[in-house]
């Protein structure tokens, strides 16, 4: 009698674990499938010419150089605006802010900012940067929009990295008459740097793949030349992929997969870089 109960419990457990394992397989398989499939379908399209030529025939022939360059500019632009502000804000929250209503309000704003849909950031950027500030449909407006979106993430990761610096280091510096800012500058920031860089890398990887906001603030499908100034219009990889995949008839399938693969490589290589920095600094400690 007890034996059968025991057995049935064992069987229940085995069945349950099988389902849990199955769920994990179902979660993981598509990722591997997507990556492997994209590589096999897209690798053939990626040649040197594909990377350094302008598109022709509405993208059916030629390369994707301007889209790559545009995405590169966008990443730089996002970094230039989001990183310093995000780090300074992280410093404010960890080193200067007191535990009061204002600080709680800032934290509330950060949490909620992180959840705002990207398309809403697009509307914000359109109304503020494109129209009100008259930056037009430009690299500058798009960078600012993506930076606004990246802000919450950069602040959060900077804050965590700065918080992880032991208090003893700060005290050792303050105790010999070094001012607060100098302590932050010369002790805290160097220590927090790997964490901050990890956050920044993740943020620009996100910016590289983001499509909805730049669709609203005016990425172009095709342009005859590269942007010459921040106020010029631009092409970008994700928007280019969107357009050729949905709006260009008779687009060679291999080319689309090639574009997708390039985008995937750009985005994921930054993610891998971030992970590598994280692992490296963890080992050093």
């Amino acid at each position, binding site marked *: 009698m007890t034996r059968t109960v025991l057995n049935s419990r064992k069987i229940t457990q085995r069945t349950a674990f099988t389902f849990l394992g199955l769920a994990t397989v179902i979660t993981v398989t598509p990722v591997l499938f997507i990556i492997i499939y994209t590589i096999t379908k897209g690798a053939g399209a990626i040649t040197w010419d594909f990377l350094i030529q302008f598109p022709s025939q509405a993208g059916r022939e030629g390369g994707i150089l301007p889209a790559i360059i545009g995405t590169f500019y966008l990443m730089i632009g996002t970094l230039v605006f989001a990183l310093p502000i995000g780090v300074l804000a992280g410093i404010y929250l960890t080193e200067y802010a*007191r*535990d009061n209503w204002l600080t709680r309000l800032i934290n509330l704003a950060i949490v909620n900012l992180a959840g705002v849909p990207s398309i809403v950031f697009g509307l914000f950027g359109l109304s503020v940067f494109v129209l009100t500030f008259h930056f037009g449909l430009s690299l500058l407006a798009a960078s600012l929009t993506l930076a606004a979106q990246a802000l919450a993430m950069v602040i959060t990761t900077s804050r965590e990295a700065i918080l992880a610096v*032991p208090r*003893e*280091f700060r*005290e*050792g*510096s*303050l*105790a*010999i*008459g*070094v*001012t607060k800012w*100098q302590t932050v500058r*010369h*002790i805290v920031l160097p*220590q927090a740097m790997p964490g901050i860089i990890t956050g920044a890398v993740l943020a620009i990887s996100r910016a590289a793949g983001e499509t909805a906001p730049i669709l609203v603030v005016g990425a172009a499908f095709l342009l005859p030349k590269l942007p010459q100034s921040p106020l010029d219009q631009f092409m970008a990889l994700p928007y280019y992929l969107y357009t050729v995949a949905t709006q260009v008839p008779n687009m060679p399938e291999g080319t689309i997969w090639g574009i997708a693969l390039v985008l995937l490589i750009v985005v994921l290589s930054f993610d891998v870089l971030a992970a590598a920095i994280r692992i490296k600094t963890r080992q050093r400690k």
Partner: protein
Amino acid sequence: MNIKLNVPDISARPTDKCVTKLKAERVNLYYGSFQCLRNITLDIPSCSITAIIGPSGCGKSSLLRLFNRMNDLIHGVRVEGNVELDGTPIYDPKIDVAELRKRVGMVFQKPNPFPMSVFENVAYGPKRHGIKSRGELEEIVEKSLRHAALWDEVKDKLSQSGLSISGGQQQRLCIARVLAVEPEVILMDEPCSALDPVATLKIEDLMRSLAEDYTIIIVTHNMQQAARVSDTAAFMMMEPDRAGVLVEYGPTAQLFTNPKDKRTEDYITGRFG
């Protein structure tokens, strides 16, 4: 041997042992609504070692941190009464806390060298205070390390990480780091509690030699240590509401051999809880 560097105005340095370097008058210290120190009054003589002893939690560290305003870092701290350095009230809003801490340096319980080289650890303070020339920095680092009785042990590893040397060496490195900014007072909060007996003796010797030029205040749990190194001793205790008070204060020899207060006697003879 002249061990001081760049002393800008030699006459400004009080030389007589009887001068009062630090003074606390009727000081109350609160953490939020909790009173940690009650009605503390004491004068710390210059160029000597003052030991603060007492049971755990009676507020020794808090009293120590009163003198370089490290308490300011704690949210909700409040200080009443008067604290003076060379006759200047240091809780005056016109006081520059960084300047104060430059003159009243501090060494902590756990050695806390910065995660940089031995050299950079010592050069850090002078650099922040505006010394740029490499030669001058090298000179300061060597003098400070010699002064901290560490030079011979680390002169070949100046570029190694400050965290790679032994615990006792780390603590002396921290002392050298303080010496490098030429303070007048050095506060030490249980500087030997994380060290082995040999390292402890080295630090004690070092303190005695530093006492010729610096005013040193040390918090310690170790009665023998207090008796060995200090010239003056302060005994603190907690009142029933956990506020710390100063029970007895006087020359070390007297406090240990002939205490005036019954509670002091109980404590130093080990009859206390």
